[in-house]
């Protein structure tokens, strides 16, 4: 099967308009005859649900939390980008497109990225109209901040809770449609598999997490907005129940998975404190505006940070990257921290952290100013660690954060299964090999609110005569049986190793060899270890309780089973790319001064993997062409 990105013809800036002028539409009277299943109630799935319901389609939305308002978009702190140019600092849609393509190290599709930049402008209007209390100047006009990797101020924010506020607006728009009767929500429901009829996605098999009941639901099209899978590393900034199961099971039904190994490791999360740790809380990137990052110059220096004089400190980011200093992009900052820790300069009980120090800024600006800028973050730090960061430097550490990889989608956000769409972090589009800060709230919202509702009509226009999709068919029987068998199989293991313990072991393998820095030997080792762990899981996982009732251990086990499969593909993907680009840093492919070295001649493509069973995969390449931007080496020196 050849990949067809379906990019519209025409100049970059005209593509979206031309697409809309020529696509097929569904008559409003026909829309209520059409059912759409949306999985996910975050910014992408929630936005799609509300917008499709507003258009008059019958929407069913599924998610595993008890309310859509708890989707993990809620945790985003920093902000959302838009090329409004309110600051008169020369921002344009093209500049935003340029920054995003460069930030992604020239590994994303031009037309999708340009559209995201174009629609960013409308998104701020939309969210403001919904009541999002964005930060404002004393004049009453909207305020902006600056984020890593760009030279303009285009980030809109709602204190340190931007994701929460955008999600509240999205959730409220959904609730309005629930009341109107155009949207039915299924909370505490998990998607376990997909039903294809004549090659088209026509339904899902879900488990009601309260009763354990397996249900069938059909529709004319299915949209996945199921978020990222950074939780595969066990320790991550994601939610405990974030998973890859929905996209992975779609993959096993024929959807190609693109660039699975490209994971953003965020440089400023709280370090692991012990083996029991379940989650790494993010400390916003904005702290790097005033905080200076350092480690002791001497290895294993046991002195308290405040007792280490300046001459015994190594401000390694300022040393290595004089131009951007502490504000280098995330991948660069994370790698530099790892390099110092590996060299024996890590701090803290487990030697797994570096210092983020506000002493200089407090000396210059005073405690009051620092409190005003970052008060909520310092409070959060204190709640978790018990330490007062006004007096002592914070300890921070890199943590798995964002999946640039995801289901391969074309310009319409359609996967390789007709009728199956992927929006938000669940797809691979827009961010290339490294995501810029504040671009993914944007992508998720724009995909859900503006792109998908417009592109899906091109598919649904052919469905107006289809009629309701029945669920009492052999196709549904077969998938439901497979789902039930798998649950029974999990419960019949009755082993001795707790599911979380296996997940932690997987996380360790992945973080060691398939994260910030990779090499051939390590990746081959990782694949071997993953296979071993998969065996251990299926032989000895301790999963008890029943299938037809609430059972969180069974839920976790199902998700881990999928992680244990995609883990192998991630390692394989990393192994197949003999270059360094963005977050994918292969130790064999670096410049003389240790920076990432791309190989555009051989690897200017997105890797889209096709499932062949067993597990085994076939690689398809979407070659990337850059007509509107000059391809350069990414440098922050």
């Amino acid at each position: 099967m050849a990949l067809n990105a379906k990019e519209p013809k025409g100049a970059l800036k005209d593509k979206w308009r031309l697409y809309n002028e020529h696509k097929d539409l569904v008559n409003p009277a026909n829309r209520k005859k059409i059912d759409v299943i949306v999985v996910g109630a975050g910014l992408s799935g929630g936005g799609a649900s509300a917008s499709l319901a507003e258009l008059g389609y019958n929407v069913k939305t599924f998610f595993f939390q008890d309310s859509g308002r708890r989707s993990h978009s809620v945790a985003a702190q920093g902000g959302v980008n838009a090329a409004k140019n309110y600051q008169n600092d020369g921002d344009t849609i093209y500049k935003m497109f340029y920054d995003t393509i460069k930030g992604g190290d020239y590994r994303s599709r031009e037309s999708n990225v340009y559209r995201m930049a174009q629609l960013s402008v409308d998104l701020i209007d939309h969210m403001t109209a919904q009541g999002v209390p964005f930060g404002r100047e004393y004049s009453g006009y909207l305020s902006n901040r600056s984020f890593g990797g760009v030279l303009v101020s285009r980030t809109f924010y709602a204190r340190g809770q931007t994701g929460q506020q955008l999600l509240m607006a999205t959730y409220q728009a959904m609730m309005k449609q629930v009341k109107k009767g155009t949207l039915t929500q299924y909370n505490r429901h998990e998607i376990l598999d997909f039903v294809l009829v004549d090659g088209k996605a026509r339904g899902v098999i879900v488990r009601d997490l309260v009763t354990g009941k397996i249900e069938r639901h059909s529709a004319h099209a299915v949209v996945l907005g199921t978020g990222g899978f950074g939780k595969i590393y066990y320790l991550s900034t994601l939610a405990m129940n974030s998973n890859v199961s929905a996209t992975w099971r779609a993959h096993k039904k024929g959807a190609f998975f693109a660039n699975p190994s490209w994971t953003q490791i965020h440089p400023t999360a709280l370090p692991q404190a012990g083996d029991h740790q379940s989650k790494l809380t993010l400390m916003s990137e904005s702290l790097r505006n005033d905080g200076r990052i350092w480690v002791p110059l001497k290895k294993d220096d046991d002195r308290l940070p405040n007792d280490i004089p300046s001459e015994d400190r190594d401000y390694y980011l300022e040393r290595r990257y004089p131009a951007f200093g502490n504000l280098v992009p995330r991948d660069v900052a994370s790698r530099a921290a790892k390099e110092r820790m590996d060299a024996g300069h890590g701090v803290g009980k487990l030697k797994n952290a570096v210092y983020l120090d506000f002493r200089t800024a407090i000396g210059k600006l005073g405690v009051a100013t620092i409190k005003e800028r970052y008060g909520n973050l310092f409070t959060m730090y204190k709640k978790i660690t018990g330490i007062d960061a006004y007096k002592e430097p914070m300890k921070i550490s890199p943590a798995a954060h964002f999946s640039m990889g995801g289901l391969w989608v074309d310009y319409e956000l359609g996967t390789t299964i007709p009728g199956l769409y992927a929006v938000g972090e669940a797809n691979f589009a827009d961010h290339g090999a490294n995501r810029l800060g504040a671009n993914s709230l944007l992508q998720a919202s724009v995909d859900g609110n503006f792109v998908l509702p417009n592109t899906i009509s091109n598919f649904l226009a052919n469905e107006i005569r289809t009629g309701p999709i029945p669920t009492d068919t052999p196709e549904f029987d077969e998938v439901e049986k497979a789902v039930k068998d798998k649950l029974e199989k999990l419960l019949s293991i009755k082993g001795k190793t707790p599911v979380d313990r296996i997940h932690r072991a997987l996380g360790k393998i992945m973080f060691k060899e398939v994260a910030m820095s990779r090499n051939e030997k390590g990746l081959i080792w990782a694949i071997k270890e993953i296979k071993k762990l998969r065996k251990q899981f299926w032989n000895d996982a301790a999963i008890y309780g029943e299938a037809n009732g609430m059972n969180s251990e069974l839920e976790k086990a199902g998700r881990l089973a999928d992680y244990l499969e995609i883990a192998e593909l991630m390692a394989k993907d990393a192994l197949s790319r003999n270059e360094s680009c963005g977050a994918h840093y292969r130790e064999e492919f670096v410049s003389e001064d240790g920076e990432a070295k791309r190989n555009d001649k051989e690897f200017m493509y997105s890797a889209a993997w096709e499932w062949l069973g067993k597990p085994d995969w076939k690689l398809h390449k979407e070659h990337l062409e850059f007509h509107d931007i000059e391809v350069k080496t990414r440098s922050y020196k």
Partner: protein
Amino acid sequence: MKITLKIWRQDGPKSKGKLETFQLNEVEQDMSFLEMLDMLNESLAVKGERSVEFDHDCREGICGQCSLVINGQAHGPESHYTTCQTHMRSFKDGDTIFIEPFRAKAFPVIRDLKVNRDSFDTIIQAGGYISALTGNAPEANNIPIHHNISESAFDSAACIGCGACVATCKNSSAALFVSAKISHLAKLPQGQVERKERIEYMITAHDEEGFGSCTHTGACAMVCPQEVQLLDIARMNYEFNRALCKAT
């Protein structure tokens, strides 16, 4: 640390529940409260026993999914923390800790420590939104909003919908939760058009869902993890009375 746990176990909404005792001997101060429960569940899994069900997701105090009444206090001993932000350093070696679900008529227990908070969704469905459809919006800077008004709207909008206010209130009232949404939207110019209908519908939904009335004790605001202010309840009452007298 050695910790004794007395945990509420209940199979389903209609079953009778009871406290069950567990002992953990290797709890560490650095652990979060929920990691301590993870440890308990791992030990149960190894023994082939059913795990203790509790709600959680983000584990960073923002999603509102975690709940629990710990030693009689919603979200545990520290004021304005969520359960997931609570750490074992707030307890001592040898402590006995009572863990129960959020209790309220409108929050029926599903199993063990998980409760059903769908009634909160129902209240928002009644009117907790601005009906600006996708594509309707004017240019964002066309309507300037005073910095302080926007900040104050944020203070109310920060509610995470956890329900600790309800679990704490002796009347099981959701007044703080409802008032947070009413205030968020009433403070903003965009929220003016639907102001009257919003308060009427939301209050009706609140009462129909089985929440009690507010008698201004203020216990809710003492536990609220987002420090939503009692003043919002006063504003809600103002909005309610205003709606009685005004046509729009």
